[in-house]
């Protein structure tokens, strides 16, 4: 099983450019998440989804957008990239967030904005 797959693995953007980080999972999980990880700061939740067609903001949503048209895919869109968005981005999924099901993570996308 592939689990959670993220693309690309690395990307360098110039200030003001836009891009989409792709995330797909093959476990038929309802819950999906986007986190960013900055050194010494743990994980910050950007957006999450509890099912196809349903998304909600996390702790740090500004500058990002998401969509969830299918159960499998949960792309993250960066509009007008800024240096503050330089980070490592992780997509994750879980069967049921309410019951404490474990999160399954992708291997991350390392984004640099210069």
């Amino acid at each position: 099983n592939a689990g959670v797959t993220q693309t690309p693995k690395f990307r360098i953007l110039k200030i003001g450019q836009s891009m989409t980080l792709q995330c797909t999972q093959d476990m038929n999980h309802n819950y999906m998440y986007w986190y960013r990880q900055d050194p010494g700061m743990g994980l910050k939740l950007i957006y999450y989804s509890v099912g196809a067609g349903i998304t909600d903001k996390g702790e740090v949503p500004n500058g990002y957008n998401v969509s969830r048209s299918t159960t499998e895919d949960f792309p993250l869109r960066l509009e007008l990239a800024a240096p503050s968005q330089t980070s490592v981005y992780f997509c994750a999924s879980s069967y049921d967030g309410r019951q404490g099901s474990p999160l399954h993570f992708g291997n991350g996308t390392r984004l640099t904005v210069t």
Partner: protein
Amino acid sequence: AQSVAQPEDQVNVAEGNPLTVKCTYSVSGNPYLFWYVQYPNRGLQFLLKYITGDNLVKGSYGFEAEFNKSQTSFHLKKPSALVSDSALYFCAVRDMKGDSNYQLIWGAGTKLIIKP
């Protein structure tokens, strides 16, 4: 406010010695507690969780964690450390606020270094 604290940025242990990575939490109600491990250039991997029941929880790779309600702690332990245990460890607790949709609150992480 609900929070998770990992008081040590780094823990150094000699191979073969027992290890402890500390975690304390502050949430209302009964907590759901988790430990995850992150190896270099990889995503996080689930190790174990506590929801209810026995205070000593066993997980992957020989790790275990002890839930202590009176001290609001959930320390990660292993009786005999391996060099391959060297990684970044994260503690997390489920947010119990009604509008949170059960999201996790994460600690900042503890770097565990096991020396041969």
